[in-house]
């Protein structure tokens, strides 16, 4: 966030005489919280008593992991801070996967947990767990609140830390007596964060050096990550790409920053990226990384990554710079601000030769798949993109279906894909889609899921049904944990160990959960099923029986360089 966008925060109103629970609720409203995802329990009873009469909408999940993923999906799709609430002990430990997921992907999230009475902490009390200890390495920051006097300030700090700088999850563990106690006077709610830095003034010398490098480059490539989504830098990025005719490849989390119908879009790079994106990176003479962190799934063998390139790296997190690769021109700061300033010095160019080279790759190595009577997951996702005008919000689980969604949906705008990139959390799709629908009531929200991932958290379909959240769950059933099976096929001599299973009747389960259930098993019936699903005005689970041993290609095998991309049997 830049200083320009920083607004004066509304005060919570007078808090003198309020209980801690009332302070909590007032502070949430002052932070603009409209929706809260959670699950009640003993240590948060005073808070739920206040929520009983609060205008804040409460969405009850069926499991705390569901609640935190919902808050995550809400945050990724809206850009606002997602908020989750759980009780002490097991309620809190059930948040762990969701917090780690949000932490790896820099998602602004505040999770509140109840804690046993402050004088019982450390006594192994009923439903006690050292939640700040457990969550310290998987949050941006966390707090234990023992006194009602500190609660207001800490809530404000938590939201501030979650949404500023490189965003991330913040956990606030509140002892139950701090929610019951009352305030004698007006509390000081001003943040006390003397060491917390949110803003880096762009170094103009470096900005100009970067622009000059771009002007001098013959074969530049923009490599764009989730940081551009977070910074709201899409327009500045597209302007740079257009002006200087720089092709753009994105990470999984950067999908949508580039309109993939543009000739300048190379789609995703890395392990399952397009051949064009990977070849372009390997041949480029200048790599401009924006809000991306040179993750191992992106770079492949780091020794052979972008061997001819000078590297510019723009990131708001100084620790991301020169962590994995040595950078020639580092630029710390807000991606939008830096790109806007840089654009003033970048000369328009046509770069015809580079453009032709890229167009040639695109033509020779498009993303492909086989077609026969089976439903091919790639084709289904491609059709889903067309039928929704490439405008739906799409959540995914983790595995083959996630990669196919990334490759075939056809992304047009940021905040469109909700996927666990860093942690790779199976089970993320169903609840995150529900959270996104709660924050985007007028959008079509689809969970493109795998049978393995979906089964992990599908209980939340109940939450969708009971809250009238019309999410479309598309479950691609190949009777395997497909990605693990693919690795066993490719690297373990087809010894399929622990990956095959019989799927339940997902449509019947959906009906039992109060949603609409549908099943499709042939290519001929696919289009009609997708249309019927999209036309239904409530939540739908579409059970799709797909070709069982489909593999994700292209693939850069682990340890290989991006230029060694395997195009699969259709190459």
């Amino acid at each position, binding site marked *: 966030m830049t200083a320009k966008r920083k607004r004066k925060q509304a005060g919570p109103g007078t808090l003198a005489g309020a209980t801690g629970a009332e302070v909590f609720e007032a502070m949430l409203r002052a932070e603009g919280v409209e929706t809260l995802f959670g699950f009640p329990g003993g240590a948060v009873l005073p808070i739920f008593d206040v929520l009983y009469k609060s205008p804040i909408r409460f969405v009850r999940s069926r499991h705390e992991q569901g609640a935190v993923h919902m808050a995550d999906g809400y945050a990724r799709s809206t850009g606002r801070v997602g908020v989750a609430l759980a009780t002490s002990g097991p309620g809190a430990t059930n948040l762990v996967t969701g917090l780690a997921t949000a932490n790896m992907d820099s998602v602004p999230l505040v999770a509140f947990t109840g804690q046993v009475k402050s004088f019982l902490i450390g006594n192994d009390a009923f439903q006690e767990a050292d939640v*700040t*200890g457990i969550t*310290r*390495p998987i949050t*941006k*920051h966390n707090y*234990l609140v023992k006194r009602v006097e500190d609660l207001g300030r800490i809530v404000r700090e938590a939201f501030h*830390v979650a949404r500023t700088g490189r965003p991330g999850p913040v956990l606030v563990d509140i002892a139950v007596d701090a929610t019951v106690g009352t305030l004698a006077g007006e509390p000081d709610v001003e943040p*006390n*964060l*003397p*060491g*917390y*830095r949110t803003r880096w003034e762009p170094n103009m010398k470096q900005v100009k050096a970067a622009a000059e490098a771009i002007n001098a480059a013959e074969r530049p490539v923009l490599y764009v990550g989730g940081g551009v989504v977070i910074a709201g830098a899409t327009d500045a990025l597209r302007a740079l790409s257009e002006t200087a005719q720089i092709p753009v490849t994105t990470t999984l989390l950067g999908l949508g920053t580039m309109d993939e119908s543009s000739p300048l879009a190379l789609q995703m790079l890395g392990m399952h990226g397009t051949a064009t994106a990977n070849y372009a990176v390997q041949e480029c003479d200048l790599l401009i990384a924006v809000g991306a962190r040179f993750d191992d799934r992106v770079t492949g063998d780091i020794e052979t990554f972008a061997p001819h390139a000078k590297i510019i790296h723009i990131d708001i*997190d*100084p*620790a991301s710079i*020169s*962590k994995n690769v040595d950078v020639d021109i580092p630029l710390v700061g807000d991606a939008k601000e830096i790109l806007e300033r840089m654009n003033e010095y970048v000369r328009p160019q046509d770069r015809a030769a580079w453009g032709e080279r890229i167009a040639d790759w695109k033509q020779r190595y498009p993303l492909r798949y086989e077609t026969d009577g089976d439903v091919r997951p790639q084709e289904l996702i491609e059709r889903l993109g067309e039928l929704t005008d490439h405008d739906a919000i799409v959540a995914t689980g983790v595995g083959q279906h996630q990669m196919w969604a990334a490759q075939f949906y056809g992304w047009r705008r940021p905040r469109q894909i909700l996927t666990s990139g860093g942690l790779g959390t199976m089970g993320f799709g169903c609840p995150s889609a529900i959270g996104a629908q709660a924050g985007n009531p007028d959008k079509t929200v689809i969970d493109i899921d795998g049978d393995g991932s979906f089964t992990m958290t599908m209980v939340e379909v109940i939450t969708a049904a009971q809250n009238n959240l019309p999410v479309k769950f598309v479950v691609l059933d190949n009777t395997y944990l497909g990605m693990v099976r693919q690795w066993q096929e490719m690297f373990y001599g087809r010894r399929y160990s622990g990956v095959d299973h019989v799927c339940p009747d997902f449509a019947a389960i959906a009906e039992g959960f109060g949603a609409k259930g549908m099943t499709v098993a042939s290519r001929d019936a696919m289009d009609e099923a997708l249309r019927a699903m999209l036309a239904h005005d409530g939540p739908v689970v579409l059970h799709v029986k797909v070709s069982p041993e489909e593999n994700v290609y292209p693939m850069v095998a682990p340890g290989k360089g991006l230029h060694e991309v395997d195009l699969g049997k259709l190459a």
Partner: protein
Amino acid sequence: MKHIISALVQNQPGVLAHVAGMFAARGFNIDSLVVGRTEDPELSRMTIVVIGDDRVLEQVRKQLGKVVPVVKVRDFAATPCVQRDLMLIRVHTPPPKRPEVVELVNLFRGRVVDVARDSVLIELAGTEEKIEAFIDLVRPYGIRELARTGLIAVPRGG
């Protein structure tokens, strides 16, 4: 290479866990870590000795800077500074050997702070090199017990 990192941190519960946890999670090795109060009651100073190459140390500094209650981080590798480590060491000294040991203590400007029948407890402050040298010299007599504070450092004036 050995680096002395000095971090000013907010004097709050849990701050040590935040810092130590970050070092553990990122696989950085701590040689010693000292926490103490400063002239400002709101702030504490952590002096952390870390061994690593320049790349590791750059990450240590940056990751430390990201820990929310950490206010300021300095690396004293290139800064002239006064460094002190404090040691308490009990050395085995049967009465005939005692004068030799006491002489060593005097040479090192240490102090004998407790005398027992066959041992002395010695207090010695100084740079790590000085402390190590003293330990080597008294080792043949027999070290009964040893405690060190770890290094603290403040840059020289001017």
